[in-house]
């Protein structure tokens, strides 16, 4: 018994924290590698639908985003609750479908790409599942007119049981 008493006799021993910075740095590097910078603040609520046939978007530099959804609370105070379109980080406040705005947006984004990749631009459509197709069709028509033909319907991966699939 005296063996145990000896140790606890002198009060609490300080924990050695000299390796704490190493641990935290390791965490830091993990997050730096595994995540990407948040580029835009999404001002519309988007809950993308689920699908089974989704693929990863390969080259982030070729991708531009089009969001369609109902505005979030602090934006709704200014623009109302009707569905809005957001192009990358710019909110389109026009009531009608602004063909020119979308066309300008496509041209502007295309200009940023190197010459060889200009026709490989991908439009990622992040659209809320509750939105009606009218608005989506209008945007698609505008994209056709702007000759930006590769689109990606953003969707979450859905896992189905094998029995239901076949």
């Amino acid at each position, binding site marked *: 018994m005296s063996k145990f008493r000896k140790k606890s006799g002198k009060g609490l021993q300080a924990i050695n924290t000299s390796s704490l910075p190493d641990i935290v740095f390791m965490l830091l590097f993990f997050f730096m590698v595994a995540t990407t910078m948040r580029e835009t603040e999404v001002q519309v609520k988007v809950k993308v639908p689920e699908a089974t046939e989704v693929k*990863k978007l390969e080259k982030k530099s070729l991708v531009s985003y089009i969001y369609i959804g109902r505005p979030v609370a602090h934006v709704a105070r200014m623009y109302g609750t009707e569905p809005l379109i957001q192009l990358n980080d710019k909110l389109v406040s026009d009531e009608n479908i602004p063909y020119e705005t979308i066309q300008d947006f496509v041209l502007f984004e295309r200009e940023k790409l190197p010459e060889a990749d200009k026709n490989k631009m991908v439009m990622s459509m992040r659209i809320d599942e509750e939105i009606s197709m*009218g608005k989506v069709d209008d945007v698609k028509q505008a994209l056709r007119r702007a000759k930006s033909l590769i689109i990606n319907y953003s*969707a979450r991966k859905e896992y189905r049981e094998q029995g239901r699939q076949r």
Partner: protein
Amino acid sequence: MARTTPEVNGGSLADIAFLLLIFFLVTTTMDIDTGITRLLPPEPDPEQEDVEVKVNKRNVLVVLLNRSDLLMVGGDVMDRLALKDRTIEFFTNPQGREDLPVMEDTEVQFPPGSSSLLPPDGMWRGKVSKGVISLQNDRSTTYGKYLQVQNELVAAVNTLRNDFCNLYFDKDYDDLNTANPIEEEIQVGIRKIYKMNISETDPKNIGGRN
């Protein structure tokens, strides 16, 4: 005068690292973008006149989504989950039925010696469907439902491609490495056999106005 360098106090190193860590946690996102990639049809030339394209009726499967999100396939109201099998049947026409698409004799070149099921020159000879799926939706259709239907159609074609790839090359279609020229040629070949023939008509209102 031997001067020793004073030891640097490392006690605050952890605090600095924590600060950086929290900064990265807040400013970055982890989500990977996933989705279904599709190609829009190019805009028609304004000078080009509308020509009535004569398409054999049996080669077209009309998939209609109306304003109440009801699905109609080739004249029958159908559940979404049955659409995939229907599409596969449409694209393969296994019984050679008269009301399903014409199967055309086609030759597709694969890399020689890539499969034991192909002749030594790598030429695949078989029948390729001339079928086209025409997807139509109303302006009031919800987007979620529309994408589910798109998903089933893409799933059907992917299944056909995958089955073919497994049978001939003992590999999943998705596992083909496009950086490898031989596997890329295989992929191009399979795409010729099972085309993603899904056409979307110009938007219009189906069944009354909204």
